[in-house]
């Protein structure tokens, strides 16, 4: 039961995410087949596999370095919309992170918020556009509400994961207005957005790792 976000926690988060994204790759790709180009699962798997070997060979010594490593690896190994957006997320988390070794729950919220703002500035998506932002936005809201209400990091992270999953599920009826799915217009409705699904996986993994319930 973590009370602060340490380098060790982050590393376990990303490694466990790599495992779960690998397991979910076909599913994510299937979502992307329906309204995109059938590569989101492959993209995430490629990126996170690369991060894991990066962490193995050159373990970052500080939080900012960790975020930068993850972000740069995503940017340089993934390509596509998700590579630059998730890459931006982590790079901007690194830029916002002043602490070398650990973050309080409140600092974690600020850092994550900064990362998501980076995604928004890069991709210009708004809530309801049927993108990963539809998972991130409610997750940040839930995280903030929980912490403001005095909940623990673990409980707040779980609330964020729940919200991300709901947010992702709620993309199903939406008509996409950003990314490849927007080309479909009304035909994009009726499918869950793949990027929101991978975001939900990342945030659920964070919650599980923080709670100590991950494999």
């Amino acid at each position: 039961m973590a009370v602060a976000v340490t380098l060790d926690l982050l590393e376990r988060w990303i490694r466990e995410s790599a495992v779960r994204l690998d397991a979910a790759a076909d599913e994510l790709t299937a979502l992307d087949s329906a309204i995109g180009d059938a590569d989101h699962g492959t993209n995430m798997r490629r990126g996170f596999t690369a991060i894991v070997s990066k962490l193995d060979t050159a373990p970052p010594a500080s939080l900012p370095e960790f975020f930068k490593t993850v972000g740069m690896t995503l940017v340089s190994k993934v390509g596509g919309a998700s590579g630059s957006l998730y890459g931006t997320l982590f790079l901007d988390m690194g830029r916002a992170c002043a602490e070398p070794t650990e973050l309080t729950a409140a600092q974690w919220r600020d850092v994550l918020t900064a990362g998501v703002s980076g995604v928004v500035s890069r991709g210009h998506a708004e809530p309801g556009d049927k993108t990963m932002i539809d998972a991130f936005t409610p997750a940040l809201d839930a995280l903030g509400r929980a912490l403001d209400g005095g909940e623990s990091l673990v409980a707040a992270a779980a609330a964020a994961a729940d919200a991300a999953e709901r947010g992702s599920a709620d993309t199903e009826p939406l008509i996409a207005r950003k990314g490849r799915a927007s080309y479909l217009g009304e035909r994009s409705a009726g499918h869950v957005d793949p990027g929101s699904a991978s975001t939900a996986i990342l945030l659920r993994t964070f919650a599980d790792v923080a709670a100590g319930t991950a494999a």
Partner: protein
Amino acid sequence: MKKLINSAETVLADALRGVAAAHPELTVDHENRLVISNAPREGRVALISGGGSGHEPLHSGFVGAGMLDAACAGEVFTSPTPDQMLAAAQAVNAGAGVLFIVKNYTGDVLNFEMAAELASEEGIASESVIVADDVAVKDSTWTAGRRGVGTTVLVEKIAGAAAAEGKSLAEVAAVAQRVADSGRSMGVALTSCTVPAVGHPSFDLPDDEMEMGVGIHGEPGRTRVPFAPARDIARELVDAITSDLDFSDAPVVALLTGLGGTPLIELYVIYADIADALAERGITVARSLVGDYVTSLDMAGCSLTLLRADEELLRLWDAPVNTSALRWGY
């Protein structure tokens, strides 16, 4: 899935080895997945394009004198990364800056945007032109805009000729933008493509249907309609394009590309009907290309591009070009 590959993971690396083996006149940077022209570029603007793989000969087939200086190859249907683009810029910048030619897909746009930022940090001046010519997609603030397809080839060729003439970065970018603004495309799929890493067709298309306005990554199109004779398909493609822009009062460059799984004989059959449909609408084709130029892996179908040209664009079009997929005047 039966493909001439070794494994889905190695398709791109293997294809680049093949490009290197087949084209000693090109330099292949395997680490950065770049195909680089050996043509001299002393002091002139350098052209860089790139995108997901699976659209060959786009872009590597258009690297050479009079066209691209470098192509960045992404994974199949996945845009390349900013590092690759930066490495390309570093390799080909000859002091006059680089023009990035970008197809309008979110991934490509965002990655090239990051590359331009990185290049600028390295002191390399760059301009970007975004090609968004697919009339199948509504161009509105409610979408990511139109997809970039066949006009990309025309931008690469014409901007390449402008760069070869020694025009400045701003001038080359302006002519590229003019081509991008004046080209329109529309495609049709008879079958889905199969992405190697996926192993099965990206979408189901019954034997008696076709996808009008399909994207080159297998993105669904405008409508799924009953399969029809070539002459009806030709008319639909021409109507979709010409109702979006007037082509009747300018010389037109026509590009008909196969999508990878369609043989040349079929392209000529439908091109005959396209030529008829254009003539009926009073449109004069000044230059034409029929063949595989922008493909979508093994998809059967075709895509038509029309460019509203003028004397200057035609002159640049006719200028010498020496690439593996487009060559004249050399």
